[in-house]
């Protein structure tokens, strides 16, 4: 750290110590923040719920909930696991892509596609409270 920056950091700390206004620290959050973050999360869960129930626009119209009402039998808590049919360890999003390509007869999604994130948010939210058991078949 050069001398100039060192002096600036020291003076910010000094200002905070005497109770004057100071920048928000990284580990400072309050209930309003928690509520906003939960809202952001639930908005994505709700988007996932729509996609899961026919919102993917795949031409054959088959939807995830037809086989998995309330996302049951998706077992998000067991991933990553050895998917014996594929012969390797996969994450949940890879199995979702398998479903998209097979029963839904459509294109797979990129791992960071917001739709794939939303589907995982909904599936995991419906399974909330179940113990994590990665690797369980």
């Amino acid at each position, binding site marked *: 750290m050069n001398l100039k920056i060192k002096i600036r950091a020291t003076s910010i700390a000094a200002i905070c110590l005497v109770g004057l206004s100071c920048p928000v620290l990284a580990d400072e959050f309050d209930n309003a923040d928690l509520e906003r973050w939960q809202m952001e999360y639930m908005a994505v869960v709700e988007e996932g719920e729509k996609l899961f*129930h026919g919102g993917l626009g795949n*031409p*054959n*119209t*088959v939807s995830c*909930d*037809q*086989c*998995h*009402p*309330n996302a*049951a*039998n998706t*077992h998000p808590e067991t991933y990553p696991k050895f998917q014996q*049919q594929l012969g390797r360890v996969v994450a949940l999003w890879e199995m979702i892509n*398998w*479903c998209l390509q*097979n*029963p839904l007869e459509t294109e797979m999604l990129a791992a960071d596609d917001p739709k794939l994130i939303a589907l995982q948010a909904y599936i995991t939210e*419906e*399974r*909330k*409270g*179940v113990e994590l058991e990665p690797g369980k078949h």
Partner: protein
Amino acid sequence: MSRTSRRELLRHGGALLAASSLPLSVVEVAYGQGSEQNFTFAYISDSHITQVKGNEFVRNWDRGLIRAVAETNLLDPKPDFIFYGGDIAQLGKPAEIDHGLEILAGLSGDVHYVMGEHDYYVDLGDYWRKQLGPDHYSFDHKGVHFVVLNSILTHEAWMHQKWETGMQRMKQMARLDNPSGQPFMVGEAQRNWLRKDLRKVKKETPIVVLSHSPLQKIYKGWNFWTDDAEQVQALLQPFGKVTVLYGHVHQIQTNQIGNISFHAAMATAWPWPYPATYRQQNSYLPKLTVEMNRADPFFERDATGWQFIDMHSGRTDVSYLLPDNANRVVAFDESVGHPVDQTDYAEAGRKSPLQHY
């Protein structure tokens, strides 16, 4: 399996065992060994034929029904007739019902139909009834009284509210896990019809009732449920031997309530999870049920299938025939007074694939 029940199975189930290499389910109603009155019928349900556009339909669901029809035609002895347990169509479109009936027309034998909610809610059953006739009826066959009910009705006010289109109403009902879903019911009019219909039936006459939804309460959230189930059961309890066969649940379920034995049908389209696997809500799967193996999604016919029913002594033995899953026989056991799964693991402990979670 105990020695006794194995002997019983061998004695009564020779034909069943011979046929059980086929992925199908048969129901036998029998009056005792060698009786001319014994007969079988096949039971196919829940095909959910889905139109993509024009003449294009979802291949997977078509294949399930085509396979069930082909296998039913191979049954020996030939079943006396076939029941179709409802949900021919996914969204009740005339094109879907017609396409399903075209496939079912390949069956050699008479078919009796049950109305499912996926056939009904777009036009309140108009097209289905135009093609297939009344949605509730009864008939007698070799001393057994058969009753078909339309059990997927719901509150009149909901059905007849101002919908923009019938398809909007259908889509509400077609979503199994709809949080604002409506409960199924037989309704007062049909219960009165049933009361009247049963007046002419002797108390010792075996009765077989077919409905789409379970005439018992298992899990309301997915309509594994009929709201007035107890009232319908009360009409059936005075009879000595009653069997209720239902579709809708896409899985094996077995139960006994008083004199009434319950058996569910598998779907030809896709299997459903058992309700207890949805951990956010309580459900009531009957204890007599030995769950079917967990489905392997990589084999698209796994955990789908159909059944044949062997009727003897006025009781129903249901054989569940699955292409890529263990075949099963659930037969009425007079010594305990309820249906019992005849496979070894019913008594000898459950295998891992039977553990749903």
